[in-house]
């Protein structure tokens, strides 16, 4: 009885103190993260939560710091203040970040870049197998088997033995998604995945992302694709002037934004 009481008291305490707790269903948490390039602040004191299985879209004007924020989640950018948690891996800006902390964080997050960043000297299959062998220590056979499954999933099984330069932009980005999935990440980070593609080709990438979202993958997506943000995401964040100025249900934010800045941005992108 006393056991039960104390455990429910703990649950209450942790619910009340949700900013510092490790809530079981929270996949990504940023606490008071700040970043500047030299003297120019990019964003200040940003906090956010993405739950397991949730798709969070981040929209906003260029230069708002969306991509930089996303790159802080897997520590491609170091931040000056704050704490970043992905799954059960945490790094704090104040403490020196060790290599093993960094590796733990990055193993939990897969990233897809605007410009794909495939390795041009490796075949498609080698691209997808590379980290499996080097990071997870899988055998070539096991890695290639998994890679072929993933390429099948993004509809590119027949491109396995080509070099990336022989694939179209849309195909390259789908390969990059397969590559990011290959290390079995718990969250996928998308940094403007369709911005370098022409609109029609972008659709095939969005279709793969939609399938991924439906399969329950936790996703953070920095994007200018408003219909994707509205229809696929569960949480919409609007970033401007170094802050998340608005967040919530995508339909509500898009149809009835509370901030004038959000209205101005949405007007510019939706009613042009």
């Amino acid at each position, binding site marked *: 009885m006393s056991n039960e009481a104390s455990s429910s008291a703990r649950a209450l305490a942790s619910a009340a103190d949700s900013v510092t707790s490790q809530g079981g269903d929270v996949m990504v948490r940023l606490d008071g993260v700040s970043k500047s390039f030299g003297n120019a602040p990019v964003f200040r004191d940003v906090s956010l939560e993405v739950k397991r299985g949730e798709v969070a879209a981040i929209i906003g004007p260029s230069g708002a710091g969306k991509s930089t924020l996303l790159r802080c989640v*897997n520590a*491609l950018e170091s931040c000056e203040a704050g704490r970043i948690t992905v799954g059960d891996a945490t790094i704090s800006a104040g403490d020196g970040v060790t290599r093993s902390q960094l*590796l733990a964080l*990055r*193993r939990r*997050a*897969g*990233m897809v*870049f605007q*410009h794909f*960043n*495939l*390795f*041009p*000297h490796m*075949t498609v299959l080698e691209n997808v197998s*590379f*980290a499996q062998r*080097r*990071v997870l220590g899988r055998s070539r056979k096991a890695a290639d088997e998994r890679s072929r499954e993933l390429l099948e999933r993004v509809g590119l099984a027949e491109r396995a033995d*080509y*070099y990336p*330069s*022989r694939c179209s932009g849309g195909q390259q980005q789908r390969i990059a998604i397969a*590559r*990011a999935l*290959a*290390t079995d990440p718990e969250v996928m980070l998308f940094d403007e995945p369709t911005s370098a593609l022409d609109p029609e080709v972008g659709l095939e990438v969005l279709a793969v992302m939609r399938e991924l979202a439906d399969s329950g993958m936790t996703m953070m997506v920095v994007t200018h694709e408003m219909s994707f943000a509205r229809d696929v995401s569960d949480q919409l964040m609007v970033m401007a002037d170094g802050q998340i100025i608005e967040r919530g249900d995508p339909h509500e934010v898009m149809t009835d934004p509370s901030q004038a800045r959000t209205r101005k941005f949405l007007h510019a992108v939706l009613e042009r």
Partner: protein
Amino acid sequence: MEHLNAVLSGIPMTLLVTAASFAIGATAAIPLTLLMMSPWRPGRLLARVFTDIIRGLPPVVWLFIIYFGVSIGGFQFDAVSAAIMGLGVVSAAYLAEIYRSGVLSLHEGQWEAAAAMGVGRLDTVARVVAPQAIRVAVPAATGYAISLLKDSAVASTIGVTGIAYMATQDARSNAGGLPVYLFAAALYVLLAVPVAVAARLAGNAMQRKVSR
């Protein structure tokens, strides 16, 4: 005819000095490049100062320093070792700059893609960066190898019996040195052309490989 034979007999030594010093340089340039590009500031500074001094010294002065100036506990370099060591060190400095520009030609995204997947720095350098940087560096490194072949002629100043040395000897002991020197010049060209052709073929082959 015996003039020509005398000059021809210098070919093996010229090739030995060139190949050996290029091999030393190509190898030593790897750690030098890593040091140049390391996040460790004193290391970068050291590598920078080293390459700038070496590249600033005329090779002939540098060979004299090594041949006449270096004695380590009674040990002194013989002429051939001094030439190979000296030109090897010079090659390392030049090739490190060539490697470095190859690495810098890569898009930052290549490093980031590997880092984002948790691939370690060593694996990233060895398997992502180096294979691409080498493709970029091959033409410049070949150009350097050809100029090294010619520069190996300075080794004749400390008595290394390459083509240039043999030509000088022959010109001195017989009247009328010009034809002998012209023959030596033709020999250098004949040796350089195959190197250039081989490098071009290798470059094309690598290009074909990534455009499949």
